[in-house]
């Protein structure tokens, strides 16, 4: 009788371990593809297929044109991307893992540092920290 109980306990433990360790493995094998929220407007500035592969090249070219030569066209500007693709929930393109930029970049494991400097929200959501004519408070550290 004791042997039967031991056997049962052993099987029970085995089942528990499988639930703990094998379960997640099966889930990881099938990571969902990123789901992107549709941007504003009829269509993107270029074909979606083209943008998927080449958006970084367009942005890099445009950044140099704007920064170095002062060309401020909006077609391939990062601000333009943000204006159309900011999430309807967070208002941002990169504040959560579901937001437009992060969805694919998290999926592919490609780190991007655009948002260390650039605002992730459109201009209309920007609130200046300081009010005009009022001296900002000194932040104690």
């Amino acid at each position, binding site marked *: 009788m004791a042997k039967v109980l031991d056997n049962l306990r052993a099987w029970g433990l085995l089942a528990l371990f499988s639930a703990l360790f094998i379960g997640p493995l099966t889930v990881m094998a099938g990571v969902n593809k990123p789901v992107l929220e549709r941007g504003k407007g009829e269509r993107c500035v270029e074909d979606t297929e083209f943008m998927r592969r080449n958006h970084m090249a367009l942005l890099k070219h445009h950044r140099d*044109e704007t*920064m170095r030569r*002062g060309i401020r066209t909006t077609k391939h500007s990062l601000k333009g991307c943000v204006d159309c693709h900011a999430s309807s929930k967070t208002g941002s393109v990169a504040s959560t893992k579901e937001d437009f930029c992060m969805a694919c970049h998290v999926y592919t494991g490609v780190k991007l540092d655009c948002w*260390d400097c650039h605002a992730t929200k459109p*201009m209309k959501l*920007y609130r*200046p*920290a300081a009010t*005009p004519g009022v001296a900002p408070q000194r932040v104690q550290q």
Partner: protein
Amino acid sequence: MSEQNLNPDNSERRAFLKAGAVVTGAAVAPGVLLFGVAQARAPEEPASDKIRWGMLIDTTKCASGCDDCVRACNTENGLSGATGPQDSQWIRKLNIRHLKSGVETSLPMLCQHCEHPPCVDVCPTGASMKRADGIVLVDRHICIGCRYCMMACPYKARSFVHEPLTDQNPEVPRGKGCVESCTFCVQKVDRGENTTACVEACNAAGHKAMLFGDLNDPQSEIAQAMKTYATTEVRADLRLNTGVRYRGI
């Protein structure tokens, strides 16, 4: 031997040239509109080297306790306004006193947008750059944060961003690890507003101590003012040909 001795008619020739200049000036004057159109360039048009942006600061009108220009700059560019040793300051107010006479002067100090900028000379990556229209900028995409430019600048005009930033102005990207300084509000200039936040604030406060404009255009307010009275470059001995000039120092 001077040229005048060789040409006895020189005075007449000069008078003729002067008259010509007056006539040309009159002919150009109705073209003010034309000039305005040329200044507000199209978005696809690059900055032109025909323009050189500059600023003239009249220290006789600058009030010693006033820091409206500094606060306006902070608001426009999303700076915290804190003045600790590691905080960014793109423009700051200085009070100076002449050691012998005791004359006290108050003035704003900012990037002087030199024609021959030492920051650009020393930059090892080419991130420090001068745009065609004379605005000196930092290309943060290639700035490695070495801070040579901060040491090279005779005006202490540059700051380094030490901490991560959030909620930047979409028009003024800034971030940790890069050097930054006054941009002459390049986002406003490129929109065709042709003014800066500090100058607007100074005018709004009624001091009118700051003028912003095109140094290359003889009709511009700033060029006219510089023709009217003597102006000084800070550290003129360095022969950097600064874009920011001062009166009364």
